[in-house]
């Protein structure tokens, strides 16, 4: 197996792109990544996307985007794993390069959520859940996370305000990221005054619906120097799964697939949680931040919110998270999110994260969650010296 590195990155601003369609968004990110890498053609394109069929009546994104980007003829497919589609597509790209079947591969994550009405998008997102046994009862995707959050608060005696620090941190970092959707800091008071979406999840616990695309270019590490001096090595790439329905889990307030994929990633890379200079976790909801920190070994069970309250998740803390705003403030264009996390990790490792730079970041982890925890993709990235 060949070692794989990232030699180019691209991203569009996240937001409501009324004048830009799905294919244009994907192309813009892809073009920027290819320019960044200095490549004119790739051997294959993997597209991470969840909802193009439901929202834009468009399937078949591999061929569509390859053609639109001027690369008609190349191998191209879409990878779908609900909200983890982006990172799952990156892993497919890695498998292509590592196997020796492809040398230079492009991965683009894209989601166009504003092409349909709210209830239709809400129903689309709920397709990540179990249609016959969860969604049929009218539970929304937010509602599923609310069920987990309520039980978690009950088990550990927590209040809603205990989750505020996650949202405040994400907005503080997003405010300084030019590509973030929400670029204003918030206070704990803003968090507490927000309207309820699905009790106990309020508007400021939840990430927004939005459009966006992000892309990376991969090649064998041994060839990376030919393209760039600031490549980033993929030290580990893992996927683990759990039951799709929350009610089928052994412990609904524990992300077993996060623990499994992180443990395997630590083993493959030789790194430990304490080696991580940052952790781009999947903060689709504040509860997911707490559960991710716990499952990946950064906090004991039930202690995730304490880590946040003590300031350890901020840029200067022990384990900075959501360093460019996270899903909460940068935005959560579903199938693109996993690629955004990796693009932002590369910015940190290159020293290009601007005002949000973590001094001398050398190794970091990105974790992308599909559904309420059924597919979890973990990547550990490190600077190539």
């Amino acid at each position, binding site marked *: 197996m060949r070692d794989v590195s990232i030699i180019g990155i691209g991203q569009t601003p996240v937001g409501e792109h009324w004048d830009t369609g799905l294919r244009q968004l994907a192309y813009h990110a892809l073009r920027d990544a290819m320019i960044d890498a200095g490549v004119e053609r790739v051997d294959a394109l993997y597209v991470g996307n969840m909802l193009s069929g439901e929202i834009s009546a468009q399937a078949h994104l591999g061929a569509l985007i390859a053609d639109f980007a001027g690369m008609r003829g190349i191998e191209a497919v879409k990878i779908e794993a609900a909200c983890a589609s982006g990172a799952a597509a990156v892993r497919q790209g890695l498998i292509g390069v590592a196997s020796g079947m492809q040398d230079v591969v492009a991965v683009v994550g894209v989601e166009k959520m504003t092409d349909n009405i709210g209830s239709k998008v809400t129903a689309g997102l709920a397709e990540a859940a179990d249609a016959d046994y969860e969604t*049929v*009862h009218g539970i929304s995707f937010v509602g599923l996370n609310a*069920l987990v959050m309520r039980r978690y608060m009950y088990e550990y005696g927590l209040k809603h305000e205990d989750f505020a620090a996650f949202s405040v941190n994400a907005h503080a970092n997003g405010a300084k990221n030019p590509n973030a959707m929400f670029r204003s800091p918030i206070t704990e008071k803003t968090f507490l005054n927000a309207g309820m979406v699905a009790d106990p999840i309020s508007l400021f616990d939840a990430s927004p619906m939005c459009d966006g695309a992000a892309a990376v270019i991969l090649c064998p590490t041994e060839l990376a120097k030919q393209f760039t001096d600031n490549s980033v090595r993929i030290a580990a790439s893992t996927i683990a799964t759990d039951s799709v329905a929350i*009610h089928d889990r052994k412990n609904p307030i524990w992300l077993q697939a996060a623990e499994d994929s992180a443990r395997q990633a630590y083993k493959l890379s030789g790194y430990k949680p304490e080696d991580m200079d940052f952790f781009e976790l999947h903060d689709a909801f504040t509860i997911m931040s707490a559960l991710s920190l716990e499952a990946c070994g950064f906090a004991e069970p039930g202690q995730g919110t304490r880590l946040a309250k003590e300031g350890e998740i901020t840029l200067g803390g022990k384990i900075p998270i959501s360093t460019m705003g996270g899903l909460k403030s940068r935005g959560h264009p579903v199938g693109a999110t996993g690629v955004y996390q990796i693009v932002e990790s590369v910015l940190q490792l290159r020293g290009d994260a601007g005002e949000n730079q973590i001094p001398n970041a050398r190794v970091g982890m990105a974790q992308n969650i599909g559904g309420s925890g059924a597919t979890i993709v973990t990547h550990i990235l490190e600077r190539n010296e």
Partner: protein
Amino acid sequence: MTIEIARHWRLKSQRYGLVGEECPVCGGKIFPPRDVCPHCAEEAGPAYQFSGKGEVYSHTTIFNAPEGFEDQVPYTVALVKLEEGPMITAQLTDVDTDDVEIGMPVEMVTRKLSQQGDEGLIVYGYKFRPQLATAA
């Protein structure tokens, strides 16, 4: 309007009767029924009738509903731990949202889950209500 009558019809025994399975190998009670036992990975066994009694493990009130449920807002969905072991997702009914709490004993009833417009399919299935006191 989608044509999905068969999709709901084939689930009638679990939707209306809470019929699951009992694993012939490990004895685990399984709901919803599946072809492979989630506990021991052996082929799952004969039908098993659940009592319909359980308790609330967690609950939420939905204010922003998915398509098809907008007219029910606000409504309460719970994770219900059945007394035989499995947990299921279902709406709570016949109870004020403010009165719902974790640990509350509930029992299954059959109700309308959703209706797809005036002429569309009506989906029936299980919901849960607070357990009625048993007659002495």
